[in-house]
């Protein structure tokens, strides 16, 4: 069997399905439901077996269309930084508020992607988010939590 990344993904999916199946069997059902033709664990159990079946087949059968990815050409660093910024954005949005975190997230993302036109970067972050916030919060009446704007008295 030729080992390639697709096979490794299939193996990981096989392990994941086995774990899913094990967890499905652990689902607690009501005593009167235990022997019912269908209960809360029936469908997940079928899914677990289906996952094992298809990933098992993918592992065993030959793979004529091997996908080759040229890792040298992939921008792992920039992608990683962008993901990190998004995680920080997610971590701070509730505490700091929508306006400041979103504006900073956009500004930082433009910067790390190589943009250096400062005025445009500013316009497409702070005023842009303010306008978008006005559309959601002011016009469409969709609540946006913002402790920062509240603390400076801009938002009620």
């Amino acid at each position, binding site marked *: 069997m030729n080992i390639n*990344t*697709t096979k490794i*993904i*299939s193996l990981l*999916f096989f392990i994941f*399905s086995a774990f*899913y199946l094990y*967890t499905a069997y652990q*689902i607690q*059902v*009501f005593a009167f*439901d235990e022997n019912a*033709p*269908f209960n*809360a*664990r*029936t*469908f*997940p159990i079928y*899914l677990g077996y*289906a*996952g094992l079946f*298809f*990933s098992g087949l*993918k592992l065993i059968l030959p793979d*004529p*269309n091997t*996908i080759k*990815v*040229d890792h040298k*050409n*992939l*921008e*792992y660093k*920039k*992608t990683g930084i*962008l*993901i990190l910024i*998004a*995680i920080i*954005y*997610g*971590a701070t*949005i*509730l505490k700091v508020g*929508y306006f400041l975190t*979103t504006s900073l*997230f*956009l500004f930082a*993302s*433009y910067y790390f*992607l190589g*943009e250096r036109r400062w005025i*445009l970067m500013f316009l*497409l972050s702070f005023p842009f988010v303010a306008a*978008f916030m006005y559309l*959601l919060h002011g016009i*469409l009446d969709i609540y*946006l*939590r913002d402790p920062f704007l509240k603390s400076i008295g801009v938002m009620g």
Partner: protein
Amino acid sequence: MIEGILIGLTTALTIQNILMVMVGCFFGTIIGMLPGLGPMTAIALMIPITYGFDPATGLILMAGVYYGAVFGGSTSSILLNAPGVPGTVATSFDGYPMAQQGKAGKALAIAAWSSFAGGTLSAIYLLFMAPSLSKVSLSFRSPDYFALMILGLTAIAAFSSKGQFLKAMMMVVLGLMLASVGQDSLSDITRFTFDNMNLTDGISFVLVVMATFAMSEALTIILKRNDPTSAAKQVSLTELGSIKINKEERTKMYKTIPRSSIIGFLIGVLPGAGATIASFLAYGMERNVVSDEEKEKFGKGSVNGLSAPETANNAACSGSFVPMLTLGIPGSGTTAVMLGALLGFGVQPGPRLYMTNPEIFWSIIMSMYIGMVILLILNLPLIPYIARILAVPKNYLIPLILFFSVTGIYVMSFNNFDIYLMIGIAVVATFLRLYDFPMPPLILAFVLGGLMEENLRRSLLLSNGSWEFLWDRTLTACILATTMIIVLWHIYKTFSKK
């Protein structure tokens, strides 16, 4: 019937009502373009405003918002690969690649004309078949629905190119597994939550679709920035192309639109099925009926591949009004919201509506149709301007896509956990996409997962645990036989090519 149509037209064609439909279309398009805010939200937002008007005007405004939001959803699918609603996921399969090839204007024009044609044909079907179809839709039982879901998932064979069938099936199972997270709908027992309260309600559709489409697309673009083939793509994005549809493309659409409108309308009539299944089935069927040469273009910017789901989802929108108006059963989330609005106006949809208040029945149908006409007139001239979104440099567009994705989730849940979950799913999806694991089957399975389990549960409970329900009813057996034929046909095609 002609008298009814005339009454409907007289109500809908006043200056005030035409103005309402224009305003509705405009706002609907804008709201529909925002990820996370689909037709259902758009109509829900309009309900308090419509209560200030008489019922017909209120319904006309909602009709404009509805079709505007559907078109807006297609626009974000085509331009940003960010379908905000399930019904426009299939639109992105060929619409987005077409936009990537510098034909964004054309893709939007094809979507607009297909939607219009789908809506027009389904309005005709609605006029003639509404009363009789309501009886047919009532004859569908749980085993039939379960078989229909299986058929829907088998359509994934249409999405998988040669040698990708097992990958597609793995994605189907993964989608169903994701859908199984959260409370069991009947017993309220929590499953796969690992004592995390944030997972009790399950994973939201918008989260999964934003993660697997918009966010992972943005990450893939950054990841492949130095890839020579991606660089070529970026250059072509500066060309927005014309909105003119040439003769060859029109010929393709003439064939696709009638068959997709029939599928869309019939699926839309079934309560609970709706535009999503309709668009996926229409896409799958279209791929099966076109020539081998055209088949190769599917997923890479095919005219048929874009026209089919757009026609079907609009036809299904009209179709979903059949059970709502004739039986009082909403066929989709959107019609459920509209049903609430109708009840608020003091209009009671149901079997008696068609008989006792034909003027309301026809006014609704006519206003829906006029909404579509106005939408086409308003949006076609705007297409070149809307398509300019793609001319935004990648350094700005990528963060903006991420921003829209996160905002879509944030306004829904106000929850950090959902944002982390979305980033996690997006990272996994990006990795899977690198190795050609298709995402559409995952999304379809995720959408159908809950319904599928529900119908399997009812079928098994009613048959006391026996699987005989699969062949007991002729309708179930016919749907499953169709599924078998599709699978066997694909196996035959695979081996015959070898």
